[in-house]
């Protein structure tokens, strides 16, 4: 028996979750923001969160990203130094993580971009925030990232104001991914864009997520987005998670009545 190679089991045990959420609750006074949310997110996995307006999706995302302080629960992130609860972590450390290991893509690019600063400066800000002090290197990285999100390099000195909505959103994505984060939070990344631009953006996002091995949490009410991007899906209603599972499984065989309603209400063209 001693000759049996157990290394394969060692590998399985090593697969610790990147983000582990336990019993997360957030109330706004007497109203429930989100209640008793628990899930694990593994490295390289994309989790979709869907639900109607007011179902607590954005509240949950804000709690995870440290923008809001949850009332209860743990958000344990696998840092380079081992697992840490980001809820009780010092603010300085949480903010440092927010600009290195994490990224947050806002629904409205104006919330995530500095509108008075050129595209290159927007992409370079995170680099400079982590200590880059070589202008030419910063600029070369910015040009590279603008290329990756399909923005022509001669637009590098234009301000985001001069960009279309889709370009602004792509710029926001470049700005967030430039420091090579491991976890990306996205709040309706395709909201407010027209359908053909949405398709291109999704294509781009899918490529980047796969290529960089990112883990992502995507909040959306667009089932097409999760079908395309998410490995796993969580359905929320009234602050509670009513159903979760593999994306295809949830969408093709919805169990909860609300999920069934959601899936059946998608227009088939």
């Amino acid at each position, binding site marked *: 028996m001693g000759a049996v190679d157990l290394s394969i089991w060692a590998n399985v045990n090593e697969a610790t979750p990147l983000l582990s959420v336990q019993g997360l609750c957030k109330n706004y006074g007497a109203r429930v923001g989100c209640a008793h949310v628990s899930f694990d997110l593994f490295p390289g996995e994309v989790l979709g969160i869907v639900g109607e307006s007011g179902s607590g999706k954005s509240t949950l995302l804000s709690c995870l990203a440290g923008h809001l302080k949850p009332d209860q629960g743990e958000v344990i992130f696998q840092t380079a130094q081992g697992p840490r609860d980001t809820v009780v972590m010092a603010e300085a450390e949480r903010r440092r993580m927010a600009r290195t290991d994490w990224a947050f893509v806002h629904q409205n690019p104006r919330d995530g971009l500095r509108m008075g600063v050129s595209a290159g400066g927007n992409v370079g800000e995170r680099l400079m925030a982590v200590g880059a002090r*070589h202008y030419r290197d910063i600029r070369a990285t910015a040009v590279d990232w603008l290329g990756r999100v399909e923005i022509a390099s001669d637009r590098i000195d234009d301000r985001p104001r001069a960009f279309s909505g889709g370009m602004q959103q792509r710029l926001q994505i470049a700005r967030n991914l430039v420091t090579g984060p491991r976890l990306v939070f996205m709040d309706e990344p395709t909201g407010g864009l027209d359908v053909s631009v949405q398709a291109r953006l999704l294509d781009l996002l899918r490529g980047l997520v796969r290529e960089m091995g990112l883990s992502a949490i995507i909040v959306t009410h667009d089932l097409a987005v999760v079908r395309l991007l998410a490995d796993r899906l969580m359905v929320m209603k009234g602050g509670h998670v009513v159903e979760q599972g593999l994306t295809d499984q949830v969408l093709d065989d919805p169990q909860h009545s609300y999920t069934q309603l959601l899936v059946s209400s998608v227009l088939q063209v």
Partner: protein
Amino acid sequence: MTAHHDATLADSYNFAYLDEQTKRMIRRAILKGVAVPGYQVPFASREMPMPYGWGTGGVQVTAACLTPDDRLKVIDQGADDTTNAVSIRKFFQRTAGVAVTESTVEATLIQTRHRIPESALTAGQILVYQVPIPEPLRFLEPRETETRKMHELEEYGLIHVKLYEDIARHGTIATAYAYPVKVEGRYVMDPSPIPKFDNPKLSNSPALQLFGAGREQRIYALPPFTHVVSLDFDDHPFEASKAPHDCDLCGASDSYLDEVITDDQGGRMFVCSDTDFCRVRQEAGHLGAMAVPNLAGSA
């Protein structure tokens, strides 16, 4: 302080205009500023009998520091004889009765707007700056709560974005005044709108440097021999720039110059912005290209 009154003073004023409790409050803010170099200390700025932008912050700091034995010098853009300098000097002559001078070397307290004197300052001197906007991050991040948080957590990536934008637009760091500095490796500070030519003089100065912003209600300080670094990029290092000329009056090649238009035919001359420095040099016999020897007094 009534002991220091004399017949020439307007008797209705306390020494140096401000009441003693206000001076006490300002001195406490100054002490805190000195203890934490580069940190902006809030203080309860008073209404002064001059408009905001005329140096109400500097005047309050000066008033809190003045003693009857002080010798005051006031400069505005390097000059002793411009409106702002003259009116503030007169103000303190009237309300404090202190001696005044135009000589940098003789002054014990110098209130300045937008310049550091050319001649080196010495131990025991106090240099008071008038500051319009003390927050170096203001035009990049409009939220005061956020900029305070950034100072607290030492998140200064944004200040380099400003320099990045300069290079991207102009090919070089075009910020010529109010050039951001880092104090003792900790706080990023706006050195008030002095030309960046003066930035190196901030560092390791034997004099005490105090900054007062009246409208924004902030005081900050550089104690003597504080290490101050001007921010830059590795491949675009900081450069203390000036007009590539010698002074046309005193011939100085190492002083900061003003360009003066002399006629409508394109005539111009470059003169030292520090009038005291220029006068002393001319009296010592140094003459520039356009100097008239008789006017210099010594030739």
